[in-house]
């Protein structure tokens, strides 16, 4: 591992002054001369075909430049795996909200007005949008997201369950969730003789380039995507979605630069969401509180257009020891938008179910939930049988219990009341895998000793601008002031997107490699003196070979205090504490922010968030921020995250594990467990809204 001087320091965000003054430019804000504005028209049925499109009135409106429909839109090349991107290529409708027309006009007001004048009639077919565990057509996908096995089996869960002294068998459900980054997806598209340039809101330009280039039959080097500042993503900007394709199409047809910002409403059907899940968990234990069987069986959905299989039960494979194990994933193909990734896909819904079940099982075994987890700590990875490169879940649980004041907790539910509030506390574990993707980086040095670090990395609020500068400074052994970073541009060296908590660890590894090569060249070939025209070196890294020998994961323990109003069922969360073992933290200030941000999003998931689908029409009813509730400032009280020292020499040269997602895993379970402790009511279907507390007795 590299020596650290800048790494770990609580450096203020380098992009901070630009962001607090309004000077940081987000995609839609790039000036483009003679730009036209684009507005989308969406389908109102879930399944069928377009019978007719009458764009006459729209085309006659002064200021309208073009109306695109499936009848006249440019033909594009889209593979079957990305069928959702096949926009306006046929009359078929596969979900409510599919793009059926797009209007280009001189102003955004005219474009929006004209979009409302496009008259579309449909031949409507019966649709199928309801996820249920008893559907006869559930199927096992070949793999689940991120390449994990669909099912795992070991021993005999059924026999172990039948023979167990203590058993728990319950089903937990999570609803549709929408990522809702605060910046709606936006693209400015410009065609010129060189090809296509897109100023675009995404989590990694290189990943979008390939899809766009293929769609329009261009070599990838003729598509340039520029995205230095991005207003959040949480997964919804990781992959190419239909709007960016339409923006490029419209600019081609209009022969002018085109600006598109989709509306908040449109984000609910066009840029992904987290599938609802139905999760059955069975746990069996001996009288000693040691687990003998763990089964986690998941039912979730994908669309008829594409397969997306959330890896919901994957975390369960490595969390706790037990000789008999089973995990499965089954999918229903529905007439719905294609689900996609949302912060910690798999772990977020999966750890809610597993960690609630662990709480219920601890109670059934008569054990403290912290002690019960420690008692079932595995020595090696129960899934791969590899040793862990580092695993400090137990240390997190103990440190968290100490800081939170857990010791001496009375386990009896509904036993503490302060005024009109029932008070309770809960705990849950967090986890997220530590992986790495291939990446490139280039570093240039000039005679004044200034270093330019070039890499197509992405900062979606993740602190990349700052953390990569710190990593480069330490790798080069120079002060951070001498390092100038360039990111968010597909013209820079190819790098993976900001996803899977792999950004910093992948990009940082490539930067460290480039720094080593640059310093070696400078020393070996130039005697330590930078030549007149400067010197550069390219770094590249592959997947981590150590991942073949070790199981690599980050862990954490989350503690929640809740208060539940005895009359109204209102839930408040006065305290959330997370203790994490995530390797080295690259920046103590931005790192803490990411962790508490994830925890707060977990609180939001536990208590507020739910997209409601109306099965009669197949549309999302509450598709705006007034009705899709995300946690506000007043919903958040004391939220704190700390970390324990963890040196892991196997993960990457920085010793970092990636922290973008782990903060959100386990939070909802800690809160649900605390609600049970406060009220005696076990809510197994998120979100924990007051109706679920009022209408049930403990």
């Amino acid at each position, binding site marked *: 591992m590299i020596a650290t001087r800048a790494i770990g320091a609580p450096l*203020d*965000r380098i*992009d*901070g*002054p*630009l*962001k*607090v*003054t*309004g*000077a940081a*430019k*987000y995609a*839609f*804000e790039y*000036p483009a001369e003679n730009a036209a*504005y684009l507005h989308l028209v969406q389908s109102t049925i879930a399944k069928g075909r377009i019978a007719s499109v009458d764009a006459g009135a729209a085309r006659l409106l002064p200021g309208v430049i073009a109306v695109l429909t499936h009848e006249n839109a440019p033909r594009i090349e889209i593979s079957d795996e990305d069928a959702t991107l096949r926009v306006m290529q046929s009359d078929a409708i596969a979900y409510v909200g599919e793009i059926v027309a797009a209007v280009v006009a001189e*102003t*955004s*007001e*005219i474009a929006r007005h004209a979009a409302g004048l496009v008259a579309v009639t449909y031949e409507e077919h019966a649709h199928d949008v309801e996820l249920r565990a008893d559907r006869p057509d559930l199927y096992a996908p070949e793999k689940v997201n991120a390449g994990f096995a669909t099912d795992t089996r070991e021993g005999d869960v059924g026999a172990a369950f039948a023979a167990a002294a203590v058993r728990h068998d319950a089903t937990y459900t999570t609803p549709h969730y929408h990522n*809702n*980054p*605060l*910046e*709606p997806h936006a693209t400015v598209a410009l065609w010129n003789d060189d090809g296509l340039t897109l100023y675009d809101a995404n989590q990694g330009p290189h990943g979008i380039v390939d899809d766009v280039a293929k769609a329009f039959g261009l070599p990838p080097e003729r598509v340039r995507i520029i995205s230095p*500042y*991005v*207003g*959040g993503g*949480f997964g919804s900007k990781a992959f190419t979605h239909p709007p960016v394709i339409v923006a490029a199409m419209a600019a081609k047809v209009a022969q002018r630069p085109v600006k598109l*910002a989709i*509306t*908040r409403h449109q984000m609910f059907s066009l840029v992904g969401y987290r599938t609802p899940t139905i999760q059955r968990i069975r746990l069996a234990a001996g009288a000693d509180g040691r687990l003998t069987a763990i089964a986690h069986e998941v039912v979730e959905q994908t669309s008829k257009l594409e397969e997306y299989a959330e890896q919901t039960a994957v975390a369960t494979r490595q969390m706790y020891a037990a000789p008999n194990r089973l995990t499965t994933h089954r999918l229903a193909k529905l007439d719905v938008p294609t689900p996609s990734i949302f912060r910690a896909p798999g772990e977020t819904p999966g750890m809610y179910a597993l960690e609630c079940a662990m709480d219920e099982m601890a109670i059934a075994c008569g054990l403290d939930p912290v002690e019960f987890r420690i008692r079932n700590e595995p020595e090696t990875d129960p899934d791969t049988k590899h040793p862990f490169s580092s695993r400090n879940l137990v240390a997190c649980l103990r440190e968290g219990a100490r800081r939170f004041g857990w010791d001496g907790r009375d386990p009896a539910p509904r036993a503490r009341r302060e005024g009109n509030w029932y008070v309770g506390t809960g705990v849950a574990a967090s986890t997220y895998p530590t992986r790495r993707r291939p990446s490139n980086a280039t570093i240039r040095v000039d005679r004044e000793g200034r270093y330019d670090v070039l890499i197509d990395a992405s900062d979606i*609020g993740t*602190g990349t601008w700052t953390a990569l500068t710190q990593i480069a400074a330490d790798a080069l052994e120079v002060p951070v002031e001498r390092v100038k970073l360039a990111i968010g541009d597909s013209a820079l060296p190819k790098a993976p997107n900001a996803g899977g908590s792999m950004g910093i660890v992948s990009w940082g590894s490539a930067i460290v490699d480039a720094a080593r090569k640059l310093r070696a060249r400078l020393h070996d070939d130039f005697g330590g003196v930078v030549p007149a025209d400067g010197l550069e070196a390219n770094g590249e890294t592959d997947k981590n070979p150590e991942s073949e020998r070790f199981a690599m994961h980050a862990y954490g323990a989350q503690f929640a205090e809740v208060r539940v109003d005895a009359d109204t069922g209102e839930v408040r969360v006065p305290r959330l504490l997370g203790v994490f073992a995530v390797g080295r933290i690259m920046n103590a*200030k*931005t790192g*803490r*922010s*990411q962790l*508490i*941000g*994830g*925890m*707060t*999003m977990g609180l939001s998931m536990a208590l507020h968030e739910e997209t409601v689908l109306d099965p009669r029409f197949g549309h999302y009813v509450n598709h*705006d*921020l*007034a009705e899709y509730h*995300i*946690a*506000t*400032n*007043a919903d*958040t*009280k*004391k*939220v*704190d995250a700390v970390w324990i020292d963890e040196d892991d020499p196997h993960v990457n040269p920085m010793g970092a594990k990636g922290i973008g997602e782990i903060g959100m895993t386990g939070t909802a379970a800690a809160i649900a467990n605390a609600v049970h402790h406060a009220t005696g009511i076990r809510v197994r279907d998120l979100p924990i809204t007051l109706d679920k507390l009022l209408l049930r007795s403990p």
Partner: protein
Amino acid sequence: MDVEITLRVNGAAHRLSVDTRTSLLDALRERLGITGPKKGCDHGQCGACTVLIDGRRANSCLALAVAHADTELTTIEGLASEGGLHAMQAAFVEHDGFQCGYCTPGQICSAVAMLREVDEGWPSYVTADLAAPAIALDDEEIRERMSGNLCRCAAYANIVPAIAGVAHRHAEGSRA
């Protein structure tokens, strides 16, 4: 229908033609290139577009440009002075009161105007004593008064101390 108007933004007068349907937010962003105010929802639900209209915070997505020809508009770009960042801007950087930065201009404009509301004795839902001569701006008051500005990155736990620090120094200054 297009109308010629003059908008006074951050002390400068801009003559421009707007559609009568043009929101103040779109006039700033799409006509004048003043892109500090952000569009997060266009429905007054998120607060990212918050600007100061004659010193009061307002959602500029819910305001029509034609109705604001006679007002003094201040956006995030107008808060910093020649001498550097506004105290609230500096506090947001110091406390890391943001991650992606998209809600930040709205949060900061909102916080600046909120402190003035408190100075003027405006109560909030959580103000215990409506008759008290001065409002004690504790964390609970800040959270309540800042809940019109959503932050999906959830920097709330950092936004509150950032604002509290500025409010504290502001109060010290008033007493001095």
